[in-house]
């Protein structure tokens, strides 16, 4: 967070707070160095403790150990096995996530525009939302088989609802005055949609996308747990079944990296699209 401070452009009507921040930027720089250092120490300490505990105080087949996890990761990558599993899971998400996100956003937008549609379908959607969605995963296996498409379905489902609800919430928060002004200025339907409404709700849309990223991975893994012949979820379940705990952790790490990578991409896009916003809100929170 602190690193984001320094390149911040000053506001025009700079308040005393803003001035104070720019004057003390060296303080923030030092502070961020400290934060990083402390963080590293904590993580290293934890790993060290884990390594020591494993085999001495706790059975290694229960918790494995960092060194074991590292060497099994090398092995599994070298054999190409894990890469294949990762690739399968990636495909499931790469298809299901964008489909779910786009249709969720589109429907949320549509509901926001049409009151009739919202009135008819809102209770239905709410009822459907009450279903624990992962409970539907076995059904998807029945419908779409044990290949990647059943997992794509689960990913789609999880992603869709989160994006739908967030976009719809954004539409309901939309300031009518912006729409009125744009229409008075003669904005066409297209212009109203893409220059006014979508940018206005974009913070909500991005919240939907960001929150649905980990859920899309959950969807893929749950599907693979239930029935699959490939994929990281399958790999984890298989490894756990034969007490190869280190491999279970390897799978978990791969999933974690996957989520982090997706989040990073979303973050980059969000920073660009919501450029107008980052200038204000981050400063205000910190000031």
């Amino acid at each position: 967070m602190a690193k984001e401070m320094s390149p911040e452009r000053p506001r025009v009507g700079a308040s005393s707070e803003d001035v104070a921040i720019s004057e003390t930027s060296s303080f923030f720089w030092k502070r961020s160095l400290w934060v990083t250092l402390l963080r590293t120490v904590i993580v290293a300490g934890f790993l060290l403790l884990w390594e020591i505990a494993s085999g001495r105080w706790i059975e290694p087949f229960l918790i494995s150990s960092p060194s074991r996890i590292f060497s099994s990761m090398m092995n599994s990558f070298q054999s190409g096995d894990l890469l294949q599993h990762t690739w399968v899971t990636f495909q499931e998400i790469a298809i299901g996530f964008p489909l779910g996100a786009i249709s969720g956003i589109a429907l949320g937008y549509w509901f926001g525009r049409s009151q009739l549609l919202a009135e008819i379908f809102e209770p239905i959607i709410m009822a459907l939302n009450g279903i624990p969605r992962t409970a539907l995963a076995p059904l998807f296996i029945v419908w779409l088989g044990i290949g990647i498409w059943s997992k794509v379905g689960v990913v789609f489902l999880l992603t869709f609802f989160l994006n739908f609800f967030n976009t719809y919430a954004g539409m309901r928060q939309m300031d009518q005055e912006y729409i009125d002004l744009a229409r008075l200025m003669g904005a066409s339907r297209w212009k109203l949609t893409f220059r006014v409404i979508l940018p206005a709700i974009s913070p909500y849309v991005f919240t939907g996308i960001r929150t649905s990223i980990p859920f899309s991975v959950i969807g893929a893994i749950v599907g693979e747990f239930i029935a699959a012949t490939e994929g990281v979820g399958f790999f984890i379940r298989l490894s756990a079944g034969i007490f190869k705990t280190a491999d279970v952790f390897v799978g978990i790490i791969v999933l974690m990296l996957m989520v982090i990578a997706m989040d990073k991409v979303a973050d980059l896009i969000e920073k660009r699209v919501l450029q107008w916003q980052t200038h204000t809100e981050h400063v205000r929170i910190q000031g």
Partner: protein
Amino acid sequence: MERSHQVATRESSSRDDAEKAQGANRLVIQVENATKIFQTPDQGRMIALEGITLNVPYGEFVTVVGPSGCGKSTLLKLIAGLTPLSGGRILYQGSEVRGLNTKVGYVPQESKLFPWLTLEENVAFGLDSKRYSKQQREHQLRHFINLAGLTGFEKYYPAQLSGGMGKRASIIRALAYEPPVILMDEPFGPLDAQTRMVLQDELLKIWEQQRQTIIFVTHDLVEAVALADRVVVITHRPGRVKDVIQVPMQRPRNIFEIHRQEGFDEAYGRLWNIFRNELNIRNNSNG
């Protein structure tokens, strides 16, 4: 750059002349017996405006003044077609307004610049590509940004601008696409006294060059007199036209020493008399 802008203004003024010559009457806005009734949450009826009649000729600067909550803003919304009438009718250039009137520009109470667009993009929003060539757009943009003293801030987002700058930008956004009528809803309300005066001065200077019709709502009596050709006084609920006062002051006016200008005292005195009577009546009825 300057020259070609002059060409543009000449064109538009000749267009206005043509419009004036065409129309049998020289009135641009006619409000005839307009009534607006709101439904209150407890199923009651609240009469916001009752039997408002107001004729505005081309190029006039009208201020509408009244206590807060008297329906001044509602009157502007009715003229813009943003909210339907409960009775009466409103004519624009002799024909009845049905639905949105895109011939009027609107400056809302808060600046309401689109926060996701830069200052430049905000001001250019109404400059439709069908009516303005790319070059004309550029000229209009430069001219108005310069007029408002915002040169150099074109790429700034609204959140980076001070309150006064946002206000200026909001006003030139409505002026830039040259709507024949501009509605202003207490645009200087929340500003401090100095900024207010500076902006009033700038508004008059801009208006003296462009001479659009302006209907300006305010609750500030000094502002109402200082800016207007005519002041319309509206009473508290139900809002009715109490009186219309001609302001005999010469133009151009010096906002900073408006009290010393001939005609100010007379007009202000008459206006204050009306308000004093209102207050007396209310005091008596309370006591």
